[in-house]
């Protein structure tokens, strides 16, 4: 099983053969034969260098193709960096659109919720032996409080066990419009 494309190691020979072609254009069949790759991969490799059509098929400029093969094989990071910079605006726009298209966050909660502890549970959340009580005034507030409680339990499960089984009550505030 190859670790890298096998033609990387034969690049010098491939370039010699390309230079020896009697014309300055390279078609897909020729590249496929020289690189010993399949037709699709040959087409993919030469596509950026295709500048001329011969019938229904494109042919690549030989010198552009040689430069392109060298970049692929040796890793011209500066070339990729230039291309990345050229595409920056396009990529940023794509990311923005992706962010807009992403499913809505179901619960809006501050990042501090990640470090939620029992000592500072939000108002309306109560844990007692045998009872969990959450009061809330809106559906979103209910989800926020559920999330805070779940994370507090995850952060300190032993404390949850202690509170839930001992005769100790952790209560903060009382909601007004509903309870879970």
């Amino acid at each position, binding site marked *: 099983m190859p670790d890298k494309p096998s033609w990387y190691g034969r690049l010098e020979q491939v370039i010699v053969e390309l230079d020896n072609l009697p014309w300055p254009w390279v078609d897909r069949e020729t590249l496929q034969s020289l690189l010993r790759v399949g037709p699709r991969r040959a087409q993919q490799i030469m596509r950026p260098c295709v500048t001329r059509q011969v019938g229904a098929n494109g042919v690549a400029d030989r010198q552009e193709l040689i430069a392109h093969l060298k970049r692929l094989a040796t890793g011209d990071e500066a070339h990729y960096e230039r291309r990345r910079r050229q595409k920056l605006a396009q990529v940023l726009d794509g990311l923005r659109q992706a962010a807009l298209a992403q499913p809505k966050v179901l619960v809006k909660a501050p990042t501090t919720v990640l470090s939620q502890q029992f000592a500072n549970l939000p108002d309306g959340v109560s844990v007692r032996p045998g009872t969990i009580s959450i009061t809330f005034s809106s559906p979103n507030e209910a989800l926020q409080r559920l999330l805070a409680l779940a994370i507090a*339990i995850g952060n300190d499960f032993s404390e949850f066990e202690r509170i839930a089984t001992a005769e100790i009550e952790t209560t903060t505030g009382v909601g007004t419009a509903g309870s879970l």
Partner: protein
Amino acid sequence: MIWPGGKSFAFTIFDDPDSQTLEAGREVYALLADLGFRTTKGVWPIRGSGTPSDHGGTCAEPAYRTWVQDLQREGFEIGLHNATLHTSDRQQTRLGLEKFVEYFGVSPITMAQHYYCTENIYWGDQRVSGLHRLLYNALTRGHNRNRSHGHIPSHPEFWGDLCRQHVRYVRNFTFAETNTLRACPYMPYHDPDRPYVNYWYASAEGATVEPFLDRLSDAHLDRLEAEGGACIMYTHFGLGFWDNRLHAGFSDLMTRLARRNGWFVPVSQLLDYLLAQRGGQSVLQPGQRRELERRWLLHKVRFGNA
């Protein structure tokens, strides 16, 4: 983790077949094959007669099947993505498994469950436990409550026993971290509370081309390599990777990735190696399960998918 052959990190992909046409698949895998990647391609063994979830190809189509068989001969692993692209009862799932063996000579070692199918095993709210299940149902407005039936012996869609008999690894949690082994250091793991699955594995979120490229940015790959980690990408090569030509960013990224000193092997080979490092056994402990579920729920709260 020490990787075989002096490699610095491990990388692989489980490609779900959703929306993947034969034409697009051939282009993507021609690139992967030439660059030396050997990953896992999920398939639907049969077409079925129900309403499909999308226009992806199945192994019921001879040209598609021949192409996938060629991939297998080249060293790619063929994985299972349920029997077909809509819900199956037990009989149809059994047929799918039989067809898989007929086409590929062996049972599927690795699978990922198709979101659309209700014969999934321990899926929807059954992926998490206790209070986390309550929270999950609140977050999803109960849409996925009791929606999966593959693990319920009395249900017509039950196939848990077949899964345990034929499939070694099933994908579960997906995280935003590129280093899947850091996100889920226990994988592959057996969960005693979900006995019909032999082992679960996790993945890195990359469902379409945009998150795939983001997850594998140079900075993230630098870190993966520095940590000596392992990345199992979850993706759909049918979603944005090819649109009459290969996505240029994807082609560039994979070309750069191939130059790194990575161990590029199929999912099952990577998981087999990890399992062997643990003496062939890995049972998830209750505290580990709580931690995994909590972090996955946080991921879900932040990203709203996966």
